[in-house]
């Protein structure tokens, strides 16, 4: 019968809209992009491809390119300082207004805070964790230098429309368990390549904040996904500009469905050196740590600092442990300063860094030495990621990070709260 709509996944809806005609998983389509994000680390090469190889003088739309200086912020040496200076000059020459300079924070967090990421948009970023924009129901995806240069020059990109893997959460978290544990649990089940070329939709989490949704959206790339979408529904979505064509449709085609019962979920820990190497914290045994690092686009937000502060309040971190807190954004840092969260963290003995990526990719601000062990609230524990390839990185939630800072070994939050 004519006129019957075939149910679509969120990715299919957004990419159909962006292609200007209906597309289905598996189709190769050219789509218009709404926003191009580039950060300091890759911008110099993007600009080179744009001007020298593509021969484009200007970006296609100066209002729809966002530049963020977050990966080495502030600059660590003369090379990076010089490249950042060049980038600022280029931004002025191009008339780009969305420049977020040193200290404003991590690209993904900032674009969401600024309201630039909105439901239904196609956002491409020079960063694999651009899946983050799925936290508001945008199709966010990471690309390399050349693809970003092409998108910035033309306002378009080509894409294979992804199949969708559905992760359905049931129930509510127990105390001390949070979105990070759900994300790591999904990585444990789906493995690092479980959603390669696919998109992940996260259902059953309408009660989560946008920040917690971003934890899941950023972790989607760690199971190989092209995008990680959370339907823009629930109280946290009330301030978003939701297009009327965007909604979960009954009968949409999912290649795989994974159910996770939150009410039985234990704190999860990803052990070195692969993100999907996940166990229940209780199975881990005693792992002593040198550094507790709270930060990144996955878990460095105000609410992550507040969750840690609730556990650290009135207590001191263990001697011999360094706790670094690198806020995901200046806005998060401001909030933490206003309501006393920051005072609690400092009183417990934590150190605060400049909002940004910090030591997440091992370039500055807390690089690890050989044989050091780090409990990290980030998203990757690859060998050498945060510095020495002989260091060991364990991934866990902000709650586990705080509990671990208090004892000096990887600790269940309930164990310190009950003391």
């Amino acid at each position: 019968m004519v006129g019957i709509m075939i149910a679509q996944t969120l990715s299919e809806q957004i990419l159909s809209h962006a292609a200007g005609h209906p597309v289905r998983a598996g189709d190769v389509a050219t789509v218009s992009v709404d926003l191009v994000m580039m950060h300091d680390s890759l911008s110099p090469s993007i600009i080179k491809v744009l001007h020298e190889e593509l021969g484009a003088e200007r970006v296609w739309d100066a209002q729809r390119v966002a530049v963020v200086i977050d990966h080495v912020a502030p600059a660590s040496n003369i090379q990076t300082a010089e490249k950042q200076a060049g980038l600022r000059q280029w931004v002025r020459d191009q008339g780009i207004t969305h420049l977020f300079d040193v200290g404003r924070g991590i690209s993904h967090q900032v674009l969401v805070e600024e309201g630039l990421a909105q439901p239904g948009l196609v956002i491409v970023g020079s960063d694999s964790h651009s899946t983050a924009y799925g936290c508001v129901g945008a199709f966010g995806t990471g690309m390399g230098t050349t693809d970003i240069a092409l998108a910035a020059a033309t306002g378009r990109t080509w894409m294979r429309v992804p199949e969708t893997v559905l992760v359905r959460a049931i129930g509510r978290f127990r105390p001390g368990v949070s979105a990070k544990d759900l994300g790591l649990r999904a990585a444990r089940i789906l493995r690092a390549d479980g959603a390669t070329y696919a998109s992940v939709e996260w259902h059953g989490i309408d009660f989560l904040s946008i920040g917690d949704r971003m934890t899941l959206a950023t972790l989607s790339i760690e199971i190989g996904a092209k995008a990680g979408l959370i339907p823009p529904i629930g109280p946290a979505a009330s301030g978003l500009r939701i297009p009327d064509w965007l909604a979960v449709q009954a009968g949409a085609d999912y290649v795989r469905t994974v159910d996770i019962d939150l009410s039985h979920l234990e704190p999860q820990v990803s052990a070195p050196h692969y993100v999907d190497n996940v166990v229940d914290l209780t199975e881990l045994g005693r792992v002593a740590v040198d550094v507790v690092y709270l930060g990144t686009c996955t878990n460095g937000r105000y609410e992550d600092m507040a969750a840690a502060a609730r556990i650290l309040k009135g207590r001191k971190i263990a001697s011999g442990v360094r706790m670094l807190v690198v806020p995901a954004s200046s806005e998060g840092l401001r909030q933490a300063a206003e309501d006393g969260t920051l005072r609690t963290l400092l009183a417990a003995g934590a150190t605060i860094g400049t909002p940004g990526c910090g030591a997440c990719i091992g370039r500055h601000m807390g690089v690890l030495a050989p044989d050091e062990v780090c409990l990290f609230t980030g998203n990757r524990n690859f060998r050498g990621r945060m510095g020495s390839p002989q260091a060991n990185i364990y991934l866990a939630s902000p709650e586990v990070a705080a509990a671990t800072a208090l004892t000096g070994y990887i600790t269940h939050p309930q164990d310190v709260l009950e003391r």
Partner: protein
Amino acid sequence: MARVWMFGNDVNTDQIIPGRYAPYMLKNEHDLRKYPFVEARPDFAPNVEPGDLIVAGPNFGCGSSREYAPLALKMVGIGAIVAPLFARIFFRNALNLGIPCFTADLTQTLRDGEQVALNVEQGVILTERGMRIELPAPPSFMREIWSAGGIVPYYRAYGRFPGEQRA
């Protein structure tokens, strides 16, 4: 002849090039050619020859979007990469740079260090042991990008993306 460099599963971009060796962090960007697998396999960069073949397990190139990972492999002249599954950003970056990636599992068929002859156009590998391996033909849009020499020359030549209908 080309040498086979064998790698395991889930080779991530931090292994191919640690973020600390990004062009952004280097004084001389041409130094990038010294660093593929600098920590994961230090004998690779000094010994790899143009045309050599990387054979790996599934999920090759997972992790970051850093195009300098496949770029470093291009700079040392890697002839092709064969893996049963590629992480998508890496695959796209390699395609854009014109590095042939074939989706096949040869980890049990070939050996690290062995000499082979690779014909990318025909998708055939001949080994010194006398084996003839046919690689699965990539989709036509991919072959078009390879033969243009990457996505930038492709776009400059045609003024459109693969498969795009322009008014």
